[in-house]
């Protein structure tokens, strides 16, 4: 840093963190993006699963089973749900509405 002088040990550690971040310094500043609207009610990165502010699932504003459908329909990570195209084309057949019928989703063993 040219303008600020680190005086105590903590400031020196902050400076070292900053100075070592060479890759970030060389890159262009991040492009401005629009507001990020998460699909569910969690802001944290947890592929396929969301948790509420206490780390549990009781306080979600949509049921956890919604996540299952999110994996099934839109998720880039297909490991969480059965393979709909080859092995288990019928696994959601009895589930017309996820929020009502989620209990009817079959367990599928590979």
């Amino acid at each position, binding site marked *: 840093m040219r303008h600020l002088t*680190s*005086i105590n*040990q*903590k400031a020196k550690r902050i400076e070292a963190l900053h100075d070592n971040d060479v890759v970030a310094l060389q890159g262009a500043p991040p492009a401005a993006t629009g507001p990020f609207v998460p699909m569910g009610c969690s802001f944290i990165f947890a592929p396929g699963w969301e948790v509420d502010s206490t780390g549990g699932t009781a306080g979600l504003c949509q049921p956890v089973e919604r996540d299952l459908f999110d994996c099934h329909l839109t998720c880039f990570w297909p490991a969480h749900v059965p393979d709909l195209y080859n092995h288990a084309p019928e696994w959601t057949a009895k589930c017309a509405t996820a929020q009502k019928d989620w209990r009817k989703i079959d367990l599928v063993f590979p």
Partner: protein
Amino acid sequence: MTTLARGEFHQFHGDGADYLYLVPSAGVVKLDDTTRAVLEALGERETPARDLATQVASFFPIADVRSAIEELLTVRAIRTVEAPPPPPPAQTVVAETKKKRSIPLSTLVLNVTSKCNLSCGYCYEYGEDKIVEAKTKPRFMSEETAKQSVDFMFSESGDMPVVNLTFFGGETLLNFKMLQSSLAYANEKAKTLGKRVNASLTTNATLLRDEVIDWMVDNDVGVTVSIDGAKDQQDKHRVFANGMGSYDVIRPRIELLLKRHRKRPIGARVTLTGQNLDVIGIYKHLFDEIGFWEVGFAPVTTSWQRDYAIEEAGFTKMLQQFQQLAFEYRDSVLSGKHHGFSNVRDTVEEIHKGMSKSHPCGAGFGLLGVATDGDVALCHRFAGSDSHKIGTVFDGVDRSGQEEFLARHHIDLKTDCSRCWARPLCAGGCYHEAHTRYGSTERPNLHYCEWIRAWTHTCLEVYGSLAERKPEFLNQLA
């Protein structure tokens, strides 16, 4: 477009230079002319970055202004309005606390007796605000319990090469026999484990005699003497049961101790009350006349209605004298002399390290207190109180209870502290003080807030001067 706003910091001066104390990181940085101009121009308003840069660029080259803004953003002295830092969610607090639980025990305080041969009016153990019903517990810790405590200390100490064993009371030396046997046992055990024991104790000095001092010297025991000042100050509260003052008894004994025990610096610990606030007079007496290596002061722990409680005017008087002694300390250090005012030394050390505390003290983390019957509590002040027990030295500590306690007392959950710039150092203050004053360990000590901020500001000023003129001293300190 990016809009900028002031981050959290406290600005202070030291020897003509301007510094920022950054919150909550506790970093200290020195400003140059450009960064100072940026902060002045920004003030308390939210300003588009471009406008801010243009405004300051009338005095400094625009490239300099840009890099100054970047640096201030890096240390979070300013922030972008678009992305305010999210408050830490409760789960982070819990996770952080659990991580800290792996910190090994570094200090165990043994309350070796709950008996005392003095009857100090303000005593938190016996006085009107006591939390321990001493009569329901053994008055002396047995050798068996002490040995078990030593075993507990080693088993909880993890990889720590040095463990601190502190004896406390009551009057510690009333149980001198047990001190001897338990320290010998601890030293022996330390040898087999490849560790070292650093022993220390606090005493009222009434029972110091040759045999005791010999033992202290031979075992390298650190000693803190509780004393309130010169005769008239000491004899106000620190009296025997018959009301007789203790000064005349302890003075020759302290002199003997200071003369003979030269291996460790010996400190005095003063309790200030509404009637005993001559901080400078007390300091001069204890440091210059008696010859203690250092003198530390603490206001009496009390509920507000006690007649010895310090009132607001008293706190102002205390602060002014603390400030005077702090600047004396600075001048002594700059001229290469030792100064014994330990309150400022301790805070300057914490500032230099950049301590940002999640909890006010080590109680419940690296420090635990043991009562005479072997019950384990957060610290010596709670030792023996059944409602604050978190385990025993025989069966270990209730981990989940301890974690839950620490999670509940995290600084991020003290809303009163959330906007205070002094919170990295204060973290809400002593649990025992809060319990005595407000009936709850979770409450921050709001009666001290103004005082703590003013005192921390003074310590920062002292720190700034030393950083500017004697940085090598700070590096020795921490």
